[in-house]
């Protein structure tokens, strides 16, 4: 982690000061440590971490001499002043640095050779640079019982702790989970949870990055690798549409760790990651990983060489069409574009669609309003959260909202479900279809605000055109108001930028039995909304070619399986929900015979006799940018380390969700929820096995009573589209008038209750 705040040296109103006899400048309000770092002078710090809030001045590592002030000053808490004269290189200052280090090391075990932090340890580095000329400590070191697991993800070695308070401040003041604490006093101070409970939460892994010593380390990464045996690659998370920037650690050919970026993207994740982003990587080596190309016929399934598999796929796609190409939400822009190129070339006439929501017409007005980035949330005096559940669906957004509220901003939320942020401000729970009431309730607060920001949930609003229109109206009527979409699909925005529509036409074509070959690209239709209808429709297609990284679903029945790289293993571009194009970079090569999707698609085109002129993801993207106005002006270079915003709106497509009709069916309106550790990735990752979440049905106490279900353990849900059976939980705080069920959990089948376009449904709930 970079320990210093970024400093804009080209901002107006620079203050001039002197550091170590150099005349320098920095913006007003800049802390001395940050100003110095921006000018290449490292004043060492331990407790300072600007992302945790104001400085606390605890470790005393950053002492400097400021002319005219008595004693040494903590540079982490001293702002630059005009003509301030600062020295960080006097004998007195050196002695102070050396002294604090000597004191820190007095009780620190010198077990660097066996410490997971060794080689990437700020304490080690700073001891080397600023460190004790001598150690005079001959006493017995402070002793704590040996290391323990704070959770299935985090290990704690108290003897190594230097009491910098970073981890507890993160827990108390950033994630606000309140579970990680300092207990006891003075030299007995220790990091703890309540009577040894597990440290649980959505963001716990951040304390590993924050810890400047090896006190808090990753359990899944424990003893896996030494720093000289690894390679770190900056990339972007592929688990939700926020697009957090992160770093992938490669060891022995696979991704063995995910950490926050040393140089955070302050407009996106600010260096924080949710635990799914950090600990889902073992899914790349899950037992159901597709490692070899497969060809399947009535008689048998054969592992084949990649050339043979591509040949077989080309044969299927070379037949007379029409064909159909279905992209999953995690497909990259390059993969989407290559599919489109196939459809306009050798497979002319093929339908190309995405499994995601696509471009719902109801949302056009909202999307046209001035857009915000995640860091704008910090500065909003009012955050209006409409629909959704960011804590579970776009997790890092939760931290931004909490930050805004800590900073004095207000939160008003409206939507069909109670969620972890509901309690931070007034919250209007509305039944599905009635979100308009919630938006109207939030209206007055909206008008009183100076910098309001609307966070609206794509999936919820796609079917609430009245609410969307009202919200768009409020945005238009309020000066300074901005909006940020809480997207539903990882790269939904990227695929929409290419003009790829939702899958309504595609599923209808499949049902009519007219499609010869279906090529799926990272798509699992039978585990997506409308699963029942998809399963039926897939039965009528001539043949399926599946480009997939994991087995299960379509890969278990496809005629040809092309083993694909995951988002941690390939190059490509994802467009975040804030319309920021960012680069995936491979942290490791895919295993076995697997290959990146772009490479497989180019090979396929080649086989089909229409080899594209480009042979790399960068060139593919360049061609897409040249051909699609929404991507105009972008290239890998322009995107760079921190991403670049799309300037033009994506083309309108007609195949997205069309809302406005009443809910299908009889019974209670269905509210779907997602749980951060409930999806396929979380279920595949053995690292997350201790926290993974299953599916459940939740009913309010009144509703359960009325339906005679108060004592039922399992219930059956039946919609016009399908049915499923799940455990029931009765929650007195859950609003009545709807039934809540968890989407996205592998095997749970809630997707079967839905239509392909995720339009509202009612379900009959009965004891099972």
């Amino acid at each position, binding site marked *: 982690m970079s320990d210093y705040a970024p400093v804009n040296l080209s901002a107006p109103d620079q203050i001039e000061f002197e550091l170590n006899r150099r005349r320098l400048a920095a913006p007003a309000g800049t802390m001395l440590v940050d100003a110095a770092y921006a000018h290449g002078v490292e004043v060492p710090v331990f407790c300072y971490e600007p992302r945790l809030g104001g400085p606390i001045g605890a470790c005393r590592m950053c002492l400097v001499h400021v002319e005219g002030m008595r004693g040494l000053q903590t540079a982490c808490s001293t702002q630059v002043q005009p003509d301030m004269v600062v020295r960080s290189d006097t004998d007195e200052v050196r002695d102070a640095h050396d002294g604090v280090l000597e004191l820190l090391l007095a009780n620190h075990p010198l077990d660097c050779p066996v410490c997971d932090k060794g080689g990437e340890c700020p304490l080690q580095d700073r001891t080397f640079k600023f460190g004790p000329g001598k150690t005079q400590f001959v006493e017995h070191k402070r002793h704590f019982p040996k290391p323990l697991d704070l959770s299935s993800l985090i290990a704690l070695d108290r003897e190594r702790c230097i009491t910098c308070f970073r981890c*507890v401040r993160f827990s*108390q003041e950033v994630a606000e*989970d*309140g*579970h990680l604490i300092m207990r*006891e*006093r003075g030299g007995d101070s220790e990091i*703890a949870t*309540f*009577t040894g409970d597990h440290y649980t939460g959505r963001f716990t892994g951040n304390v590993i990055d924050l810890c400047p010593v090896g006190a808090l380390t990753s359990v899944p990464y424990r003893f896996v690798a030494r720093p000289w045996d690894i390679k770190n690659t900056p990339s972007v998370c592929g688990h939700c549409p926020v697009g957090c920037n992160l770093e992938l650690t490669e060891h022995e050919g696979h991704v063995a760790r995910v950490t926050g970026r040393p140089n955070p993207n302050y407009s996106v994740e600010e260096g924080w990651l949710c635990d799914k982003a950090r600990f889902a990587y073992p899914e790349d080596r899950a037992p159901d990983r597709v490692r070899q190309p497969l060809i399947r016929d009535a008689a048998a399934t054969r592992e084949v060489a990649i050339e043979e598999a591509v040949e077989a796929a080309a044969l299927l796609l070379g037949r007379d069409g029409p064909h159909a190409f279905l992209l999953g939400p995690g497909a990259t822009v390059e993969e989407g574009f290559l599919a489109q190129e196939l459809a306009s070339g050798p497979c002319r006439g093929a339908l190309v669609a995405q499994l995601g929501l696509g471009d719902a017409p109801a949302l056009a007005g909202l999307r046209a309003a001035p857009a915000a980035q995640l860091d704008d949330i910090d500065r909003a005096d009012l955050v209006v959260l409409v629909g959704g559940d960011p804590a579970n669906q776009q997790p890092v957004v939760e931290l931004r909202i909490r930050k805004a509220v800590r900073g004095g901003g207000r939160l008003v939320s409206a939507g069909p479900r109670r969620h972890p942020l509901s309690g931070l401000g007034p919250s209007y729970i509305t039944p599905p279809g009635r979100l308009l009431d919630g938006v109207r309730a939030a209206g007055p607060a909206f008008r009183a605000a100076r910098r309001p920001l609307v966070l609206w949930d794509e999936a919820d609003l796609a079917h609430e055109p009245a609410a969307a229109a009202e919200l768009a109206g409020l945005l238009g009527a309020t000066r300074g108001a901005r909006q940020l979409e809480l997207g539903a699909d990882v790269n939904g925005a990227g695929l929409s930028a290419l003009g790829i529509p939702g899958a309504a036409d595609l599923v209808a074509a499949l049902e009519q039995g007219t499609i010869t070959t279906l090529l799926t690209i990272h798509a699992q239709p039978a585990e997506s909304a409308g699963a029942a209808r998809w399963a039926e429709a897939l039965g009528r297609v001539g043949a399926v070619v599946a480009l997939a990284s994991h087995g299960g679903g379509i890969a278990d029945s496809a005629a040809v399986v092309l083993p694909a790289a995951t988002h941690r293993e390939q190059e490509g571009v994802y467009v975040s929900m804030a319309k920021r194009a960012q680069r995936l970079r491979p942290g490791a090569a895919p295993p076995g015979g697997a290959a990146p999707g772009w490479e497989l698609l180019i090979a396929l085109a080649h086989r089909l006799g229409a080899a594209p002129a480009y042979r790399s993801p960068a060139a593919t993207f360049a061609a897409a940018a040249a051909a699609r106005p929404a991507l105009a002006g972008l290239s890998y270079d322009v995107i760079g380390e921190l991403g670049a915003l799309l300037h033009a709106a994506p083309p309108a497509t007609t195949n997205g969700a069309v809302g406005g009709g009443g809910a299908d069916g009889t019974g209670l309106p269905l509210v779907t929820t997602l749980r951060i550790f409930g999806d396929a990735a979380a279920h595949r990752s053995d690292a997350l096995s201790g926290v993974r979440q299953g599916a459940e049905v939740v009913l309010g106490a009144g509703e359960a009573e009325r339906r005679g279900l108060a004592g039922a353990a399992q219930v059956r849900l039946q919609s016009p589209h399908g049915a499923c059976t799940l455990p029931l939980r009765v929650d007195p705080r859950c609003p009545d008038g709807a039934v809540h069920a968890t989407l996205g959990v592998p095997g749970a089948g809630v997707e079967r209750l839905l239509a392909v376009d995720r339009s509202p449904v009612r379900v009959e709930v009965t004891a099972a």
Partner: protein
Amino acid sequence: MTADEIRGHIDPIRDQFAEGRSLILPALKFAQTEKGYLDGADLEAVGEAVGLTTAYVESVATFYDRLYLQPTGRRVISVCINLSCMLRGCDELLSHLTGRLGLPSDGGSTDDGAFTVQQAQCLGYCDRAPCLQVDVGETQGPMSLDDADALIEALRAAPTPDRLWR
């Protein structure tokens, strides 16, 4: 102690503080009057009554010497060991008391649960050194060894603790 009992104690003073968190010490002290120490359930109840996580309550409780997270004897004798008392013989007083009760010389609790003897920092009765405090009662001194013997007898005869911080 239950969260409701604690609420009953702190609700009347709630409006004296701009932030509810301030009620944590009054709540902890009140919860401690029941058994003389706080167990996990007490911390949980305090957290519920004040609106804080149990972990947070624990972090605050462990900061203070006079909140106990381990069982104590019915009567807690705190012997001041700071400089003024040292100059007037508190070390002898402490070892006399602990010796008489069969405790380690630096303090501890008797097996029958009757007494805890602990070291205290300056109790603010240096003019009456060496001094000691029983529970939260008024500090006593100067204590001779005979006084200490008499005190133990008196406490045995009157085992009801004086724990209430109001």
